[in-house]
């Protein structure tokens, strides 16, 4: 098999933590053509090496962390990483991405990806540089939060801030909290579906990748430069430059107005203090400093210091929209400075921000309604907006203390264990993951996406640049179940392609045409648009075949009672999704070419995508 020469380093790094063994493995061209890279490449290793019946915390599970064919090239958004493993929340295949610089640095060190297998007897971290790879002792880092870990490793190895990218787990990951994530480069996170818990189960504290100096060879460097410029222009123009200039900092008030901001665990859709959280206001009020990733000119990501209120002087990162919402509207907390503190606390403890919000909000609602008592909550008065109690319960979860040990298993587990009325307050999906930080009763496409996604997070996105090539309904009525099913099914693969390129959505906007030009200019594979689209859909279907063997059934593809309940107020009060659910799912399955009873891709779907061998393996 021919090793891939362009757009790739031609190899991946293998680390067996059980044996303490490190080796290189060649990457061939046929694999890239079939699985593209990033998420797709991770899925390839997962399905080949990890039996679907393996438990997420079994040493046989692998943890893939990798870049894509555009990684390390000067195209905005392409320094990100994708993590693939069997996730702790769904126990199925998962993929989750983080921005930052690790993807680029890794390729400059000469690797497309790192694949970790086995489990170490003692805590370790992996150090990759131009000069080689080492497994280093991490015993002194145990108990350190994700920011401290980043600082300590850079200090120990003698690297300056931008000279190394460190992604680590915090106490939550060490203690196998089911929604622990992997955090690095000052608060970027790959955090869905418990990938941090998988890392913890392997006793791997961190990945430390130096800024390598090897160039990634490409077939057409001039074209890559041009695509870089075009991508910047696209990002500047998309949505009137809102994301380019403001990141997600302006989303919260907009979301509230449209009825898709989650407020107090879906008990209302009104958040009167929304304007306090407007990005224009917050960035002007607090000290704010742009902190972009490699090759990116956008003002998406900022460092922030609180300048007023109870957390005056606290410095960390500016929360993303989902973080703002998780620690404000969702838990009835109305001070932006406090939100900055709590969002950073969650990052430092190393938990997924949305699940943390769902679980705290659930406790608060249950406490208010008397379903959970102060005693059950270890003496914490979980009233809406009680910051001291929130802080303590988050720590109890991260260290699995008292009731925190139950909550550490995630919303679904805790709610089902409690049962009764409390179960009806919880927001989750039947598979075990919970949604991103929105009220999806006002974003039907994303509710469907969250429920059917193979990854335990977002798998497709209705908002695509060049959406006509994905045959999106236009104009789109977001509350028309037929169009929702069509939008979700038709765009399947678009987000997956971005996750295989490992390109940040805030720069790519899933512009598949531009990505096609980019992958061809980088690799010389001369793929066609149809081939690329098919590759995106192929990876979705391969994950599904795997997950069906890992325990997924169609009846698990369902929102929890609260998740699909009728909004009690706000603009979407009279738009319940539940009555349309069955029809919507039937249509979605049909459009996807899946069997409604078994959930399995139909023979013609399997044939069209050229995955007969994989279907045979996971019969």
């Amino acid at each position, binding site marked *: 098999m021919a090793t891939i020469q362009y757009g790739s380093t031609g190899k991946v790094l293998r680390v067996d933590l059980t044996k303490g063994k490190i080796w290189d493995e060649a990457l061939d061209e046929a694999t890239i053509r079939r699985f593209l890279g990033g998420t797709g490449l991770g899925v390839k290793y997962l399905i080949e090496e990890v039996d679907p019946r393996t438990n997420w915390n079994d040493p046989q599970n692998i943890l893939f962390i990798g870049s894509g064919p555009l990684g390390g090239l*000067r195209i905005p958004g392409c320094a990100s990483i994708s993590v693939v493993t069997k996730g702790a929340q769904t126990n199925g295949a998962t993929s989750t991405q983080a921005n930052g*610089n690790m993807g680029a640095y890794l390729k400059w060190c000469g690797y497309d990806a790192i694949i970790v297998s086995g489990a170490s007897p003692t805590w370790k971290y992996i150090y990759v540089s131009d000069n080689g790879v080492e497994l280093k002792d991490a015993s002194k880092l145990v108990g350190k939060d994700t920011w401290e870990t980043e600082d300590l490793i850079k200090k120990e190895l003698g690297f*300056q*801030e*931008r*000279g190394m990218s460190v992604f680590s787990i915090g106490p939550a990951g060490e203690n196998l909290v089911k929604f622990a994530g992997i955090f690095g480069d000052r608060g970027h996170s790959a955090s869905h579906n418990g990938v941090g818990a998988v890392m913890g189960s392997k006793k791997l504290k961190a990945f430390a990748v130096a*800024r390598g100096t090897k*160039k990634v060879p490409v077939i057409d460097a001039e074209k890559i*430069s041009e695509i870089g410029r075009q991508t*910047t222009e696209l990002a500047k123009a998309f949505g009137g430059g809102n994301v380019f200039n403001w990141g997600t900092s302006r989303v919260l008030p907009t979301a509230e107005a449209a009825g898709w901001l989650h407020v107090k665990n879906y008990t209302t859709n009104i958040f009167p203090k929304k304007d306090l959280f407007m990005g224009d206001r917050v960035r002007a009020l607090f000290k704010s*400093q*742009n*902190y*972009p*990733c*490699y*090759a*990116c*000119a956008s003002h998406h990501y900022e460092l922030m210091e609180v300048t007023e209120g109870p957390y005056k002087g606290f410095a960390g990162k500016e929360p993303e929209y989902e973080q703002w919402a998780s620690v404000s509207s969702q838990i009835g907390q109305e001070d932006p400075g406090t939100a900055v503190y709590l969002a950073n606390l969650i990052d430092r403890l190393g938990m997924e921000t949305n699940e943390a919000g769902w679980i705290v909000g659930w406790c608060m609602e249950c406490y208010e309604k008397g379903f959970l008592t102060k005693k059950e909550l270890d003496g914490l008065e979980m009233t809406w907006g009680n910051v001291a109690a929130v802080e303590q319960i988050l720590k109890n979860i991260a260290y699995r203390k008292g009731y925190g040990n139950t909550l550490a298993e995630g919303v679904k587990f805790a709610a089902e264990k409690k049962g009764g009325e409390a179960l009806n307050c919880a927001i989750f999906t039947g598979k075990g993951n919970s949604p991103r930080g929105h009220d999806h009763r006002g974003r039907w496409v994303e509710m469907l996406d969250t429920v059917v996604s193979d990854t335990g997070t977002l798998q497709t996105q209705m908002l695509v640049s060049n959406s006509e090539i994905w045959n999106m309904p236009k104009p789109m009525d977001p509350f028309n179940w037929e169009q929702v099913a069509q939008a979700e099914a038709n765009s399947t693969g678009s987000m997956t392609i971005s996750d295989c390129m490992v390109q940040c959505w805030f720069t790519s906007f899933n512009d598949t045409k531009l990505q096609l030009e980019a992958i061809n200019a980088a690799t010389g594979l001369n793929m066609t648009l149809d081939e690329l689209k098919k590759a995106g859909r192929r990876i979705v279907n391969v994950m599904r075949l795997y997950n069906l063997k890992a325990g997924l059934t169609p009846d698990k593809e369902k929102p929890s009672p609260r998740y699909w309940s009728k909004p009690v107020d706000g603009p979407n009060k009279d738009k319940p999704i539940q009555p349309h659910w069955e029809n919507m799912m039937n249509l979605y399955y049909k459009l996807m070419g899946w069997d409604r009873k078994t959930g399995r891709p139909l023979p013609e779907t399997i044939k069209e995508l050229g995955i007969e061998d994989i279907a045979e393996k996971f019969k």
Partner: protein
Amino acid sequence: MRIDPNVCIACEACVPYCPVGAIKMKDVAEIDQEMCVDCGVCRNSKVCPVDCIIFEVQPYPRDLRVTFSNPRTGHKATGIAGRGTEEMKTNDVTGRFKRGMVGLGLEFGRPGVSTTFRDLEKMSMALAKHGVEFEDKNPVTFLMVDKKTGKLKDEVLDQRVLSAIIECVLPIGKLKDVLATMKEVSKQIDTVFSVDCICKAEPDGSYPVKKILAEAGITPYINGKQNVGLGRPLAKEDK
């Protein structure tokens, strides 16, 4: 100026700030050291999100770039900041430009263009042949090996600066020939330059060299650049 390649994130934020277009994008931003005039605009703009633009004090002759290009730096030789000359602004007190004489200021380069001393030397040597007297309190004069020939020190010739000014004074009678020489030399020069003609106004307020300029095909833009009222004419008039 230099960009630390281990820190730069290639966001391109600095690129439009460079007055001479010396910042080129490779895998990270790189500053073309020949083109860069060390003016510091990229760094002083504070636009770099990772603060990776570095200025290191340079040894002679490279340090000339800063002195001529960064308006916040003073010339060691003259003690005057910016391009390092007072021109006619203090003539009230200094009396540098006397009746019957014309001062010339040849401003080489501009932001966006820049110049090398090699180009300046072509002009200064041509002017010297007419016996002009170069202004002592001028940084270009300071770089001359010999004021009689207008020759600059060899080691400075390849240094590039944002702009630099040749200043000299000559009898009005020589102006016509000097203008012809300037026009000729201008063909050999790879930058732009403008010419200041500095004279004391006649008692009736008229401009003594207007006619000579008109005959040479030059339309002057006349302005009174003297800082009127800032000093008493202590200089002894026409002595």
